[in-house]
């Protein structure tokens, strides 16, 4: 008979599963609340200057770490601009470069690649997407960084900036290149799936109008795949933003803001984004003010990734009007 009450009744199962699902929201709320609660002292002591520049970030962090044990003497002074700037720079370069690269690769795989090449390329892309970041970091630090340090950076360049920072090869260049390679496979996979899902009738209709294959792919398929491209870009940005280990190994361990006015040297200057800073300073968390400062970094990252999800959702909405379904 149908149990209306009893341990496995529909109502009870629905309620308990619903509670489980709602607990995800609770978790996110708790995450925001706890991280901000712990991070608050660092923000409140610095005010808006927390986001500004001024002084050597590493030295400031050192001072915080060496704070005397008396709570009222704790040091919080921090101007995190170099790290924020490094984060934005690395992410922007990687996402823009990666998106263009991924789009071209995806169009190639779907439309122009010869059959044999496609059969190799598709599983290879999926595999690359699964490679752990520490492996990318290892290859970077053992191969690319020494190569750049010894062969691409001349002695004169090193001497020119020696009073500010050491150029040893771990740099913006290597960091952004490896980051681009890291985020491209995911974007390629998503865009390929979306391009394949474009209705055949549109492609046939466009071809029947005498439009060549390249134009058909770009004006019809890529256009129809725009929601997926946005989703891929958001995903890739989230990953680039949060990439800690690989960049800690490869972009430099100095909280330095690369200066575009330095010309070519700009590419070779080291930098360290927020996520990598957290990893680098993971041992010192037991010192309370230091821990709170590190939690402040995590809070900024959290807010950024929430804002990113929101931006992705907002960007997809206008596309529905013209009949582009989203993923």
């Amino acid at each position: 008979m149908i149990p209306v009450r009893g341990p496995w009744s529909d109502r009870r199962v629905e309620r308990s599963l619903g509670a489980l699902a709602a607990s995800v929201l609770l978790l996110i709320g708790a995450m925001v609340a706890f991280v901000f609660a712990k991070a608050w002292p660092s923000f409140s002591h610095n005010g808006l200057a927390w986001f500004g520049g001024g002084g050597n970030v590493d030295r400031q962090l050192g001072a915080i770490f060496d704070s005397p044990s008396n709570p009222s003497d704790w040091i919080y002074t921090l101007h995190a601009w170099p790290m924020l700037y490094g984060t934005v720079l690395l992410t922007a370069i990687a996402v823009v470069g990666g998106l263009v690269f991924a789009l071209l690769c995806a169009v190639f795989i779907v439309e122009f690649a010869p059959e044999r090449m496609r059969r190799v390329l598709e599983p290879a892309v999926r595999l690359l997407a699964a490679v752990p970041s520490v492996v990318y970091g290892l290859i970077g630090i053992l191969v690319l960084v020494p190569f750049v340090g010894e062969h691409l950076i001349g002695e004169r360049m090193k001497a020119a900036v020696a009073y500010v920072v050491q150029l040893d090869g771990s740099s913006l260049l290597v960091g952004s290149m490896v980051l681009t390679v890291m985020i491209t496979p995911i974007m390629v996979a998503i865009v390929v799936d979306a391009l394949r899902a474009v209705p055949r009738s549109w492609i046939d209709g466009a071809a029947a109008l005498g439009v060549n294959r390249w134009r058909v792919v770009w004006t019809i398929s890529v256009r129809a795949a725009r929601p997926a491209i946005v989703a891929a870009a958001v995903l890739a940005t989230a990953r680039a933003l949060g990439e800690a280990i690989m960049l800690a190994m490869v972009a430099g361990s100095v909280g330095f803001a690369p200066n575009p006015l330095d010309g070519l040297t700009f590419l070779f200057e080291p930098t360290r984004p927020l996520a990598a800073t957290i990893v680098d300073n993971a041992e010192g968390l037991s010192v309370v003010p230091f821990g709170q400062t590190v939690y402040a970094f995590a809070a900024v990252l959290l807010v950024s990734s929430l804002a990113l999800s929101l931006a992705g959702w907002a960007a997809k909405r206008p596309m529905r009007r013209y009949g582009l379904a989203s993923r």
Partner: protein
Amino acid sequence: MGSLIEPPQRADGERADVASPLEPPPPVRRIAVDATPRRVSSPPAGASAEPVRRRQPTTGVRERMRLEHLTIRYGEKVAVDDVSLPVRQGEVLALIGPSGCGKTTLLRSLNRLTELTPTASRDGVISLDAQDVEALEVTDLRRRVSMVFQQPNPFPMSIFDNVAYGLREQGTKRPGRAVLAPQVEEALRRAGLFDEVADDLAHPALRLSGGQQQRLCIARALAVRPEVLLLDEPCSALDPRSTQTIEELIVRLREDVAVVIVTHNLQQAFRIADHVAFMYLGELVEYGPADQVFGAPRAKRTREYVAGAFG
């Protein structure tokens, strides 16, 4: 609901609604009906039950395309077997036949759309204005020979962008809106859609009704000024009203464009075609003027098909 009439009670107590075999049937009763009858709107002025009158085209009929011994195979299977046909401007050529007889494949080969299928291969010659279509650049060919598909397939863009699509994606420079607007308007007028959409050309095309979408596809095909227009069962997904509108516009178009239409609907072919080609299992069974194929078909199979013996 009507008012109920009691069957009269007969004198001997028998019920009158059960007729005895020896008695004459009861007289007809008049039933009064309460409800007002629902008024069916009269068909629009100009539409008649007779087939659309075909006027003699003024420019005269001239041959635009020619198929010679065309054979198309998908892998091993022969879809079209040794078909030779002319396609003339100034007339409508209807390809009729049961499902799977190859008429759609034949149509698609006229603008080399069959090449999009990997297993297709073709024998024989198709020529456009005495030039082999193989020798032409395929994008060029498709601009001169345009196609409208069975299911309306407007792109996910506005109406204007849909019609202007073929014009925009043609060369190195994209023409500006000022250049495109009059051409778009002309194409929409030829397709009989302009009056309905003129006030908002930025309206998303996918939000139009089925008939309007199909007319939009026709406008899109006409915008590139083709010499031949191919229609693959364009009205099969539409209601009778839209079908009639599209049939009228096809007849209007045939003066400037050679029209080839594939249709499942014999009545439609009867209404609008000037010449008819009947295909069966890939072979061309009969070809001739519409009056002759429908009125006095020569081949036995044509006679059977036209009479509805199979379909």
